């Protein structure tokens, strides 16, 4: 159960590297200089060798994604960093930016070099204005030191980084919605294909990666792709930040080697376990858009394949834990409320369907539900799933459908009796 501080060591070692001199003293920018001395394709090949998978949620191999960008496009290519981080339970990108902004800036410039881009963007959710200020200050230092701009580190390579803020919309974390937002439009997803690698920002080849993915690149170039690929299981190499929250004693971000740590170890050892006298009820292990797990899944190793093996997803690594004081129906209702609120409205099955999901769960919680509502929800899921442009609607269904599967008795009890108000507020002072 090792807690790792390897890839994001600067983030989780407790020392904040918001000053360039400190970052350089910790070995920062050695990797970028090394990358700039290599051929772009060789840098890309190292990304590929590493087996690094996208850390935003989808888990698509980063090197492969980058290799999809055409090399002979008449349009300029772009790198866009997805820092919209709005998945409930997820707050890892926030800490990377707050504590280690240069590692992200180093990573994004390196990615830019690999795909021959001279303009990159970091899109942050509007609520991260404070984090944007940290990043702006770091960017100013990086520019002054020649790590961003023309002729980076004397290599002749030019790359600009632009920070762009959203204004409050979960859907802008979906890559094509993010591009729409960055183009000054309503943040609604596009029909794919074409994929962003071919026609992304301004209809040009675009590489989009999450903050955590791009921040992993400097250590990969510094130590080589094979070094990274050798960490953890073959199909899920490397380390990952898990954000853990909810009913645990020590919520926070923890970097673990994929495959080395079980869900039980994450919750009970790393995150300090539950309150005394409480038992584990359920958790949303990869953000709120994934199927829930139960006690019988606690010994599952945390990696992409193992979690898929028990019917869920590693997702963003935002693990929300609920103990036996919580009510799964009430939790489902809260998530349905979230997805209804955040549905962009473009696809009717999502716009209408999330609304109905919330209404049905609300009447269950209010004690006016009907037994047929369980079948009604099930038929609703079938009418929504796979019928929308983006994964938001399927993400809304997954936690609720799985909750009904594992905790049907709880739903029946709530339909019969309603759900009591939650117990008194978590004792803040005691945490």
């Amino acid at each position: 159960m090792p807690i790792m501080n390897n890839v994001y060591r600067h983030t989780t070692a407790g020392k904040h590297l918001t000053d360039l001199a400190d970052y350089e003293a910790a070995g920062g920018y050695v990797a970028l200089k090394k990358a700039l001395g290599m051929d772009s394709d060789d840098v890309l090949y190292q990304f590929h060798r590493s087996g690094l998978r996208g850390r935003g949620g989808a888990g698509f191999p980063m090197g492969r994604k980058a290799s999809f960008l055409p090399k002979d496009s008449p349009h300029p290519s772009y790198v866009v960093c997805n820092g919209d981080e709005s998945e409930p339970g997820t707050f890892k990108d926030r800490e990377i930016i707050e504590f280690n902004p240069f590692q992200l800036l180093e990573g994004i410039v390196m990615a830019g070099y690999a795909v021959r881009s001279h303009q990159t963007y970091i899109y942050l959710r509007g609520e991260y204005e404070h984090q944007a200020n940290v990043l702006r200050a770091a960017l100013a230092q990086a520019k002054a030191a020649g790590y961003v701009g023309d002729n980076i580190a004397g290599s002749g390579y030019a790359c600009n980084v632009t920070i762009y803020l959203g204004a409050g919309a979960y859907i802008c974390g979906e890559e094509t919605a993010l591009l729409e937002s960055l183009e000054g439009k309503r943040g609604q997803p596009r029909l794919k294909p074409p994929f962003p690698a071919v026609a992304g920002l301004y209809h040009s080849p675009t590489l989009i990666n999450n903050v955590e993915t791009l921040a992993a690149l400097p250590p990969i170039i510094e130590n080589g792709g094979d070094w990274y690929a050798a960490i953890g299981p073959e199909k899920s190499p490397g380390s990952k930040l898990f954000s853990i929250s909810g009913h645990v004693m020590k919520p926070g971000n923890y970097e673990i080697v994929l495959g080395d740590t079980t869900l039980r170890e994450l919750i009970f050892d790393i995150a300090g376990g539950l309150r005394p006298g409480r038992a584990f009820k359920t958790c949303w292990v990869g953000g709120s858009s994934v199927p829930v797990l139960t006690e019988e899944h606690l010994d599952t190793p945390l990696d992409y394949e193992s979690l898929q093996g028990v019917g869920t997803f590693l997702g963003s690594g935002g693990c929300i834990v609920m103990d036996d004081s919580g009510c799964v129906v009430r939790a489902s209702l809260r998530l349905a409320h979230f997805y209804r609120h955040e549905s962009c409205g473009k696809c009717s099955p999502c716009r209408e369907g999330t609304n109905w999901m919330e209404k049905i769960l609300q009447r269950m919680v209010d004690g006016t539900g009907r037994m047929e509502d369980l079948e009604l929800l099930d038929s609703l899921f079938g009418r929504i799933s796979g019928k929308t442009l983006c994964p938001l609607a399927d993400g809304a269904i997954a936690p609720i459908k799985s909750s009904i599967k594992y905790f049907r008795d709880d739903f029946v009890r709530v339909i019969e009796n309603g759900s009591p108000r939650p117990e008194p507020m978590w004792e803040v002072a005691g945490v």
Partner: protein
Amino acid sequence: MTAADIKAHIDPIRHEYADGRSLVLPALKYAQTEQGWLPPEALAAVAEATGYSQAYVESVASFYDRLYLEPVGKRVVSVCITLSCMLRGSDELIEGMCEHLGVEHSHGAVTTPDGAITIQEAQCLGACDKAPCIQVDAENTIGPLGQSEANALLDELRAADRPRELWR
């Protein structure tokens, strides 16, 4: 805020975007810093500064939670009510805060009669480690907050002067 003020804000960053439409969102956010919301005059100024119609810039503004097309209070307090915060008592927290402010709790935004504070439910703020957490305008999200701390913060906000620029 005039179109010229907005142009002075966006012109220096125009070269970073291949299409000037990308400046609509930064222009809207900047225009909002003056009054804390976007009255029709502000939308007209954004339209003039960016070269898009007022209808277009309003359609963009209406998409985003943090762009306000109705008047809001001197300070906007967003209380996260999504799952991690709910599990740690956000529902009672926001109800207690509304009671302290003397306003009726609603799922939407509600402003105190004196216009000092708008309190609203927020979807996940990305600070679940600090649950239950709240954000004042677009300042750094804080938490975990007990009821008395939250109420004290509201009193402080009410007493303090309005920031010169309202980034929210």
